[in-house]
Structures are given as C-alpha cells and as structure tokens.
C-alpha cells in the first residue's frame, strides 16, 4: 500500500436512521413549537432573536425553541476569532459597538511567512485587513446572544442534541433528540431519559460545521452543490502569557508542508491572554500529517517561543471549518419546512477568515423569511433570495476560487490568489473543480510508518483533551461509526488526523489466536470537531452535555 483514499474506508451516511417518519415509535416526550432551531451558535441565536422581535413588533408571540448539544451555552463553540461587527449592528441597532461581547478592537496587525527559524513580514493582503473588526471569544458571544434570546422569551434547551430528522412526505417536521443515560451496549439505564420529539412549522438547521442533519437533508432531498464541501481542521490553544501581545498575527508557511493549505493565527484577547491556533485544509496529502503536532511545533518558532515562555496553556480545542465557499453552498438552503444556516450551509469566507457575521446574517435573513412564511404562507425560498441579495453571497462570490486555487499547492495557489484579489475575483475566470476531502489520495511517507510517530513537544493529545474541559461519561456507547476492519495504515492515518486522541493504531499481535482490532476508538475523548466525519469514521451525537466545555474559545 502506498496511498490511502479515505473514502474507501468511510461508512456511508446512515440515511435510513437519520431520516425518520414523524410519529415513529420510540420517543418519550413530544413538544410542539412554531419554530425549532437546531444549534445555539451565532446563526441559530441570531435567527431566534430576530424572529422573536418580529413577532413582538407584530403584536404576537411565537413559540421558538433552540436545541443545543452542549451542556451550557457556548461550550461547543470555538473560533479564532476576529469578528466583523456588521451583523451585530444590524441585529442590535440600538446598541453601540462597546455594548457587544467583544474583547478589543483590532489595532496593529501583521502577517508573517515562516521558516523553521526565521520570519518575514508580508504586506497584509487586502482580504485579511481587520481594521474596524474586533477580537472576541465565540463562547462569550454565544452566551451573550443566548441571554438576549432568553430575555425575548425564546426557549433555549441546552444539553439536547438533535439526532434524527422527523419528516412528513418531503417536508421536515422537526427532530428527535439523542437519548441520555445509555450504557456501553446502548441500553437505557435507570435515571436515563428517552429521546424527545420536537415538531415545528419550520425547522432551522444551524448545527454548525459538518452538520449531521444538514448532510442528511441534502442527501435525502438530493440538493446538490457545484463543488463538494471541503473542510479545514483548526486546533486552538488559549494561553496566559507573561509577555504582552500588542497585535493580531497571522502566519503562513512553516510548519506546514508546501502541499497543505493553511496558516496560523495569534490573537490577543487581553494583552496577556492569547488565542493561538493552526488551521489546515483536510485535503492535505501526507497521511502522517498531524495538526495537533504541528501546533506544538509552531509554538517552538522564535516568534511564538518568546511570547509563550513562562506562560500557561489554560484551554485547548479543535473544530473543522467549511472552506469550500461559494461553489460548495447547497444549491438551495431552504426546503419544505426547513432552512440551513451558518456553517451548516457553508457561509464562510476563507480569504478574510470570517464566518461569524455571515452566520448571524444568514440567521437574520432566515428569521425574516420564516416570519413571512408563518404569517402569510410565503415560501421559505425567500430565505435564499435574501441571502443571495446580501453581502453574504456577494462576499463569497468575490472570493469564489481563492481557496480552490490552493488545491495544487501553496506557491501556485498564492500567485493565483493574488491575481484574483487584484481583479476582484474575475481572473482567472471559470469555476475550479474540487474533490471531496475524503477522495483525495494520501501518500504514505516515511513519517507514516510504524515507530516514527512524532513526539509532540508542549502538550500531548491526552492533556489537550483535559484542557478542553471534556468530562464525557466513560460508559456511554461509542458514537463513532467506523468500518469494521481497516488496514493498519488507515488506523495510523486516523490516529494522526484526530487531534483529540480518539483513534489509536495497534500493530498486529504476533502469534495471537484472534486478531485484535488494529484500530481502537476512545470515543469519550471526542471534542466534536468533526474531522473524523470528513475523513474517517462517521460522527453521530452522544447524550447531551458530552464533549468539550469551552469557556473562552
């Protein structure tokens, strides 16, 4: 074996269990709502807030429920983040920028090209200029938005993951939540709680990156996109530093190989509280690439080493990012009884490294379309029209090929991206075709053979998972669907792909009577980053409150 194509080992999306006829047996409570929003992130909460306000202004009230799989608001939310305040201003016209849950306006900023020992300051590309934007923690943003939504009477149910899509004919009727309190074999235990059915006139899927029900709906309704969605994996650490940081930093180059797309970010939330991370496209070619290990190496660069010396890592987390841009958006983000918002739909602009304000804006647009739908039966396709006419679609169209240009490596990609910037996206023309990440072949290099696994300097994956706040019950059933027998090379590929140490590759035991599995799955470690769902075993939701407990990520 000299190459791995991850798709060959990936189980199919379990559509037959994800799409469920409304009224199917097996649920405990059933709750009727006007509007159900799946996911309390920036998209879902902006949608809930705008919708509750529209209803109130109209002299009525809507029964709006928001489901969230994290135990508390914001605990599964992770971003850089430098936030464009535009959607905040639209959602809260009566508030000032200083009222928003931001940490500080971006002052100085710098972009560097790194080699192992040196750094060159580059002119900041226009798309990456952040003047007027704010450094923030997405956890804090989500908690703030959640409180605003609750003040308006929205019901926010934390600790309830949506696990199945309830349907009637071709319409979405609601969702069924994941049960809680199952034992390792998946059997209910005393004190556990059964699934709940939540049904609504409109369901907004704001599940975030690589949303399970979003995938299921698009597959079930055969809603295509011009390109498949592609993803990057970001691994982030939060540091209390002894040295203050006075600028927003982005880096390109080392420690990434030249055939991987990505870069790092270093943001000061406070002068001595620094968020840093590395984002790598999941179309990387070397099966041995390990983003977590690369972050540990990045910290050894002189630029960061001096900043972090004597400091302490206080939090760690990981998350995928939908990077396909304009051509990866589902052809329509609305259907019978359903709309797709935010990261779940793919509203991320890679060249400017922004998604939060697009997510919120899509939520605001969805709220307006849903309100008209409930009030006078207008089609939910209005949501697509609103987004297509907004800066969300405009911005993504302008940079439509920029991320895609990097599919053949960093240097060629960089030149093309520069031309695209100069011409406002018009040159080179046409549409760049992409493969799904799982279809990209990985080479087995020396690094991917047994015995040469790199030792992470800094933080091990086990310590990292602890710092994510992950306190998932050890006795829950595994939520990851892996192919029964994968070759050792694939098991090793998974073990490096997963930043949280969920997968372990074990060499075959010599002379053993029964072959032990080569892939071992430590499911409770999972921090729901979804990289596994993109390249390896499928992800499904666990009982509510499992996974990380991010606080300032």
């Amino acid at each position, binding site marked *: 074996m000299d190459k791995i194509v991850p798709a060959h080992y990936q189980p199919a999306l379990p559509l037959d269990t994800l799409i469920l006829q409304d009224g199917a047996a097996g649920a405990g409570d059933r709750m009727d709502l006007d509007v159900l929003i799946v996911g309390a992130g920036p998209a879902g909460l902006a949608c809930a807030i705008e919708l509750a306000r529209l209803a109130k202004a109209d002299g009525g009230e809507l029964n709006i429920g928001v489901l969230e799989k994290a135990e508390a608001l914001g605990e599964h939310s992770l971003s850089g983040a430098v936030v464009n305040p535009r959607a905040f201003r639209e959602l809260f016209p009566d508030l000032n920028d200083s009222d928003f849950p931001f940490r500080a306006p971006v002052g100085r900023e710098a972009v560097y090209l790194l080699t192992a020992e040196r750094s060159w300051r580059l002119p900041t590309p226009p798309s990456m200029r952040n003047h007027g934007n704010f450094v923030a923690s997405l956890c804090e943003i989500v908690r703030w938005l959640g409180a605003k939504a609750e003040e308006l009477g929205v*019901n926010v149910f934390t600790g309830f993951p949506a696990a199945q899509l309830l349907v009637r004919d071709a319409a979405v009727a609601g969702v069924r939540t994941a049960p809680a309190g199952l034992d390792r074999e998946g059997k209910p235990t005393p004190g556990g709680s059964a699934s709940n059915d939540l049904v609504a006139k409109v369901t907004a899927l704001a599940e975030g990156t690589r949303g399970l029900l979003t995938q299921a709906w698009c597959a079930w309704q055969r809603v295509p996109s011009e390109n498949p969605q592609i993803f990057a994996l970001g691994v982030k650490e939060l540091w209390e530093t002894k040295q203050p940081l006075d600028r927003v930093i982005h880096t390109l180059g080392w420690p990434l190989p030249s055939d991987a797309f990505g870069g790092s970010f270093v943001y000061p939330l406070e002068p001595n509280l620094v968020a840093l991370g590395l984002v790598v496209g999941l179309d990387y070619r070397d099966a041995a690439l390990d983003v977590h290990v690369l972050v540990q190496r990045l910290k050894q660069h002189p630029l960061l080493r001096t900043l972090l010396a004597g400091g302490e890592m206080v939090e760690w987390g990981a998350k995928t990012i939908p990077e396909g841009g304009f051509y990866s958006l589902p052809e329509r983000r609305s259907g019978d009884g359903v709309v797709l918002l935010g990261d779940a739909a793919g509203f991320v602009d890679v060249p400017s490294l922004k998604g939060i304000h697009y997510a919120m804006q899509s939520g605001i647009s969805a709220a307006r379309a849903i309100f008209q739908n409930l009030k006078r039966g207008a089609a939910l396709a209005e949501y697509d029209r609103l987004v297509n006419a907004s800066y969300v679609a405009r911005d993504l169209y302008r940079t439509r090929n920029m991320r895609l240009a990097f599919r053949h490596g960093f240097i060629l990609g960089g030149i093309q991206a520069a031309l695209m910037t100069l011409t406002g996206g018009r040159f080179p023309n046409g549409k760049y075709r992409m493969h799904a990440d799982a279809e990209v072949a990985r080479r087995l290099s020396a690094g991917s053979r047994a015995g040469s696994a790199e030792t992470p300097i800094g933080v091990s994956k086990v310590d990292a998972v602890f710092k994510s706040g992950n306190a998932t019950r050890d006795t829950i059933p595994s939520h990851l669907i892996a192919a029964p027998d994968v070759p050792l090379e694939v098991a090793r590929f998974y073990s490096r792909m997963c930043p949280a140490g969920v997968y372990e590759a074990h060499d075959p035991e010599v002379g053993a009577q029964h072959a032990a599995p080569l892939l071992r799955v430590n499911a409770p470690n999972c921090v729901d980053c979804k990289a596994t769902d993109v390249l390896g075993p499928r992800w499904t939701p666990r009982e509510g409150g499992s996974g990380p407990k991010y606080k300032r990520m």
Partner: protein
Amino acid sequence: MKIAVCIKRVPDSETRVKIAADGKSLDEAGIKFVLNPYDEFAVEEALRRKEQAGAGEVAVICLGPAAAQETIRTALAMGADRGVLLQADKIPIDPFETAKLIAAELKGATWDLILFGRMAIDDYNTQVGPLVAELLGLPCVTAVSHLDIEGTKGVAEREIEGGIEVVEFPLPAVLTADKGLNEPRYPALKGIMAAKKKSLEVKPVQAGAGTLEIVALTPPPDRKEGKIVGEGAGAVGELVRLLREEAKVL
C-alpha cells in the same frame, strides 16, 4: 409529604478558580456556576419521596445573588414545585449567619423533611444543615447514603470509616444527602418548559456580619516535578529504594 430542599449555587468543579485581587475571595469573572452536586442528591431524594407518597410539595430554598434564580430553575426543571430565593449580594462567610436566614424562612411553614446536601463544594463547611436543625429544634442526620421512611419514623444509613452506621429518627427531621443516596435524574425537556412557569419568590434578606473573617486565600503549593527513574525491569530496584528511602511510602 411536604419537603423543603435547601440548595446553593457554587462554582462548577471543572472551573479553574482564581483568587481575586483582595486575596480573600474568588474572582467570579468567567466562572460557570452550577447547582451544588450534593444538593442534587437532596433534590432527587425529595422528588422520589413525594412521588412515593403520591402527594405533597417540594419547595426549594436558596440563599444567594439574583443569578441564583438560574440555580433554582435547575431544581424546578428536575421537578420541584416552587422556589424561594433569599436574595443577598454576598453569601455570609459565617455558616451560622446563613443558617439563621434559612431557618427564619423555614419557620414560616411546617415540613415533614428538610433536606440539604452534605456540603457545598465551594467552602466545604458541612455546617448549615446541622445549624438549621438546631435553630429549628429538629433532629438531624448528616451524610445520609440510604434512607427508609415509614409513617413518621425514618431510618438512615451513613457511611463511616470501615462500616455503615444506621440511625433511627422521628419526622420531621433535617437530613443532609451524601453521594450514593440516589442517582439524580436528567432534566427532561418538558420539565425545563414547566420550570419557567413555576413560582419563584424572591425575598431580599440582610445577613448579619457574623464572627468569622477570611484573612487570606492561597492556592495549594505547586506539585514538585516528578522523576523518571528508568525503564523496564532494571529500574524496579532503584524505584523501590527511592520509594523506601526518599518518599518513605514503603
């Protein structure tokens, strides 16, 4: 069965707490607060007793800041019937002052059972329950890990060093719940919705100054760095010698 459960809002045990600039209190910025885990056992036990009796009331009483309403809602979502917040900006350092405020509230009604958690995981005082019992002149059993009630007579088990102590007591009584008493239920969606509509009375209270004062808070000393003696069977001898002579644990 009429049961009062006294609960406390405490920092989540996963929270990394920081000492505030005054050196005497915790910096509350960014801390996630939860219902004290031992109080969860108390709430669960109250709900089971009421369910068993087929009738009655479970009232939840909490001394704390306005934000503690959220903590009370958690108990209401589990199934408690109503809540009372004795609102004070600061919870007194002196458990006796806390006990006086709670006892004053409890005196307003008659109760079959008054339940507390064995202790709050923030200050570990384990005092308020017994102090309230004393103030109300009721019998008190602490750290209950198993409970049987027949009519007006109760039998409680307490886990003590090397065994189990069995205590008989008459009702009404004050009990404090230990881990193992039960497995608290997961809040249900319907319970969360219902909790929003349940009565939550807010009563401002003024705590006395008490006789205790926190002089200083200090974090535990940093753990000394470990030592790797070696690898494989060859290192065992040296490890045993170090455990015996340096660590003196063998």
